[in-house]
């Protein structure tokens, strides 16, 4: 099946995007799995000849937003502080993939979600501005301003402006 094969070929990149959105290996793979399942279920909505990668990134990003909203609701119901404490500090889960959180990871964590996803699409995944704006369904001016602010923050955190 060409569709499955193409998705399989995209999988390493999709994992990377999932990882930059969720900042956690296990969450990233959960997100990947949910995205693949969604894609297989909605395969009729993908138009042959259009870019499968953009379509998949859009699915993944929208699922992630749903997840974030659900988590926000949960944390508001329970302990609001919980989310902040848990981030990047879950030793068990981090061992699942050989990616150190490191300075880059910590700097990415400090970004607001809306800047992080733009950074991930353009600087990590290598999409052009227009492509990234289409995936996120935002005007290109919004994209460039988020990208610029996110980037300046990262450069400051990582000390590369020095």
């Amino acid at each position, binding site marked *: 099946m060409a569709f499955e094969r193409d*998705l399989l070929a995209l999988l390493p990149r999709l994992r990377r995007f999932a990882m930059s959105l969720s900042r956690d290996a296990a969450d990233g793979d959960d997100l990947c799995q949910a995205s693949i399942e969604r894609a297989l279920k909605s395969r009729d909505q993908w138009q042959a000849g259009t870019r499968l990668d953009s379509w998949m990134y859009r699915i993944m990003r929208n699922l992630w937003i749903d997840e974030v909203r659900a988590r926000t609701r949960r944390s508001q119901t329970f302990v609001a502080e919980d989310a902040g404490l848990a981030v990047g500090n879950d030793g068990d889960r981090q061992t699942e993939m050989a990616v150190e959180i490191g300075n880059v990871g910590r700097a990415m964590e400090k970004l607001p979600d809306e800047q992080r996803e733009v950074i991930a699409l353009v600087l*990590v995944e290598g999409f052009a501005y227009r492509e990234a704006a289409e995936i996120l369904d935002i005007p290109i001016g919004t994209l460039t301003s988020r990208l*610029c602010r996110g980037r300046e923050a990262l450069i400051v955190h990582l000390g*590369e402006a020095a």
Partner: protein
Amino acid sequence: MTIDPETLMAYADGELDAVSAKRVEKAITAQPELAAQVAAHRALRATLADHFAPVVEAPLPDRLTALLDDRVVPFQPAPRKATVFQVRNLAAMAAALVMGLLLGQVVSLGGSATVGTRQGALVAQGDLAKTLDMQLASTQPADAATRIGLTFRDREGHVCRSFESPALSGIACRAEDIWRLKRTIDGDAREMQAYRQAGSAEIIEAAQNMMAGAPMDAEAERKARQAGW
């Protein structure tokens, strides 16, 4: 000349048109600090790429690849969720097998030996080779001595066919103009009606483990024969 931060960033990313890029370049020669900012943008891109590179290079977890692999259909592990692929494959196989099994009665094979060896491997010969060469599951006579069940391609791309006869059942795959016997089930086991199901199930299972994609339908089987398997 002032260059706003977003334009400078777009320049660093190669997103500007030629005219705007020229304008930025002119400004950079006048203001060296702009060049440093461009370098910082590009360095950041490289840093992020390096940081996430291990994710792309890491082996993919089975739970993700399994969702997308329609060739390797897990059959053995007992409690399993039936995927769309499995259901479709099983239905096609069941149809082909029923056709193969139900047509005709059991008639003994011709006299000559149907199995030989070639370079240490079991191969079909005589009547069995002829049957594998010529007989189509869709048109095989009701009283065929050996019935063809499934025809499919294995993962190396070889055409394989399952066959059943009173003396011997199994799966043969075509390579270098020879039908090599990949699985065989002794005829003795088939003499008792109770074992017939077990034998068929064994062949289905073996075929499923070998199969790349779905089994051939009547049309594909005919074309494969035309092409000399």
